């Protein structure tokens, strides 16, 4: 493999010359490492974002569907592989329809939980059978609306496969006190990848459950150490401060504000660790284990860089009352996409389209609400 490929030469079009097309075989064809390039700019994206926000507020939320398409098109249009950018082709009206449906369900759930927690649980259970449907529709919509060189991605997952890896595997995780969790995440990844396609070619997955167990063991240990160590430290500091603040221990009052702030900092750092570590490892492993035809991917994300990005983004977003959100998104995308390599063995010209199907946007919107969004 050609590992030393730097940033891709924008002029370099196809790596394989036409005569090779006929004599092509997996063993013979040399792979070319190509790096994804991200040309998005925080200031440009900020302007798009703030105009989107203003129009969304002015139209009482209706514009949000158009806003989403516009923001997405900006991001996709700035992701380059070789000499081509990606294209997002979703119809805003479909997204609006999906959002209205999701909003209706959320409002009903909200009313249910205000009236009684039991109504809420009942409504929640009643919605469970819809989860696999939502997953399949969301993934289909998102992939089918993503194009590269005039060819759309696709997803052919079926309801019952999704049912196994979503609601049913949650039950398995709970029943085994979390021991099955890494395996179900592996199964979910394999399901999502192997049912995805680009044109008429399906993605393959060569991952195994083992690394997932490794990631989760590390997570559990570090979170445990952070909580226990941080908790003891916080307790010690609070006790010391209380002792110091009062000569008579009987009337000493613990500094509640200090305890609260300490607790928030501790909880926040644990959350940041989980977000940065698990996302880094899961995303890297998922892509490193994925194949498309004879093409392979390589994504090497560094945990410390991701942790720094997440931590600084969180602070900046809070300090700017949310105005940093677009810059934060661009920063993360620039880093992640910049680390992404494609080992291309198939001719860039050789992909063919599969059959096209129309998919509504409801699933995609529900996935957005549940945080299931998966990058391209």
């Amino acid at each position, binding site marked *: 493999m050609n590992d030393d490929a730097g940033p891709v030469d924008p002029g370099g079009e196809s790596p394989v010359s036409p005569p090779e097309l006929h004599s092509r075989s997996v063993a013979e064809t040399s792979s070319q490492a190509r790096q994804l390039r991200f040309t998005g700019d925080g200031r440009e994206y900020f302007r*798009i974002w703030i105009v989107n926000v203003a129009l969304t*507020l002015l139209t009482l939320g209706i514009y949000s569907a158009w806003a989403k398409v516009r923001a997405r098109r900006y991001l996709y249009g700035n992701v380059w592989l070789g000499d081509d950018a990606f294209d997002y082709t979703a119809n805003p009206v479909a997204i609006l329809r999906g959002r209205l449906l999701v909003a209706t369900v959320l409002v009903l759930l*909200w009313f249910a939980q205000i009236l009684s927690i039991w109504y809420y649980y009942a409504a929640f259970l009643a919605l469970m059978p819809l989860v696999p449907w939502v997953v399949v529709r969301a993934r289909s919509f998102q992939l089918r609306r993503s194009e590269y060189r005039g060819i759309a991605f696709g997803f052919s997952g079926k309801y019952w496969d999704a049912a196994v890896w979503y609601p049913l595997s949650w039950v398995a995780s709970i029943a085994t006190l979390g021991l099955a969790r890494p395996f179900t995440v592996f199964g979910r990844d394999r399901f999502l990848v192997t049912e995805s396609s680009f044109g008429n070619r399906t993605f393959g997955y060569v991952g195994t459950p083992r690394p997932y167990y490794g990631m989760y063991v590390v997570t559990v240990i570090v979170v445990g150490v952070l909580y226990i160590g941080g908790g003891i430290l916080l307790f010690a500091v609070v006790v010391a401060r209380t002792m110091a603040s009062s000569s008579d221990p009987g009337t000493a009052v613990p500094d509640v504000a200090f305890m609260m702030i300490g607790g928030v900092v501790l909880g926040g750092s644990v959350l940041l660790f989980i977000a940065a570590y698990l996302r880094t490892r899961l995303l890297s492993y998922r892509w490193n284990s994925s194949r498309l035809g004879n093409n392979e991917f390589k994504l090497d994300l560094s945990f410390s860089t991701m942790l720094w990005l997440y931590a600084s983004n969180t602070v900046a977003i809070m300090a700017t009352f949310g105005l940093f959100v677009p810059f934060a998104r661009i920063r993360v995308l620039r880093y992640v996409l910049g680390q992404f390599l494609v080992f291309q063995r198939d001719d860039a010209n050789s992909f063919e389209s599969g059959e096209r199907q129309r998919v509504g946007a409801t699933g995609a919107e529900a996935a957005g609400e549940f945080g299931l969004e998966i990058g391209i």
Partner: protein
Amino acid sequence: MSAIPCRYFDGHDSRCREAAIAITTSGEWVVAFEDSAERLVATEVRIPNRISDTPRFIHLPGGAVCEVRDNDALDELRARLRRDREPRSETFGRLVHRLDSTWRGAAAALVVTAAILYSFTRWGAPAVAGLAVAATPQGVEALIGENALTLFQQFNLLEPSELEPNRRNEILAEFAAMREDMGVENSELRFHSADGLGPNAFALPGGTIVITDQLVDLAEHDEEIVAVLAHELGHVNGRHVIRRLAQTSSMLVLWTAFTGDVSVAALALLGPERLIALSYSRSFEREADQFATDYLFRAGIAPTRLGDILERLEERAGTGNLPSFLASHPGAKLRARNAEEAAEGLSSHPETSARANNAEEVTEDAHADTTDRE
């Protein structure tokens, strides 16, 4: 007729052909290829709106795609189309691009956003809450209150009272008199022991008031208990809890719309959202304080009693009052936060000392009032 270079993909395979796209005087789009004399002609073509300087993908009927990079040339070409033929959505798209491609447009959007957020916070949310409260039947409100109380008990935050029955009856008699005087008939007083919450009293939606044994013990004078109950009856009278519930929810919806992303909103905007909720509650607190001082005057009790116990509360405030998101179970933590919000606690308010001062100011105002009346 000038043609713009483009990259053509037929939609069947990923091959790229260099081509040029142009428009005829009759409004037809023509794609000409470099490697052949073939020409494609299409009439119904939607040009995507321009976004910054990203490539534009023109989807032709039949699934083919033309990728154009020269955005300025494409805009010029499109401008040649007669304006009356342009679909309204495209006109709007051009307007949006004019806005978000310049800092002036972005500044205007920022001003509009800030103005909407401010006015919604200032007037919109309270108005929405007022409507929601007016539309909420008393029965539903009582149900919400019951639900919150059950939750408190489920989390072992409230346990059966250990006060002497005589002591309870004394306070209940006082409470009944107050209720009658104020005309807040739907209110009901409950005693509970609460080690976790400590000295506390709060009103629930529907009018139930909970007072903890710890607060009764903390009071150095019965008039202090009366003052606290008067304050809570002020919340019941103004239906503050249900109102705040409605305000907080409508603000959450707005913040979500603002960031366009639920997860970011939940993580990052917890701060501002809480700030807003607090500022609402502050005005409710002032209202309830005023309500209480009015009553204390009528009953011939020194309104400083309220300030006295509030200050003592602040000294002891919130032992064991950990932030709700440290609770391990996510469902439980959310419920705990809602329950906290559903109850107007006394000791959970961080600005108690400010309010103690307020109460004193109110007292002085009230003094002035009575002097005027005299």
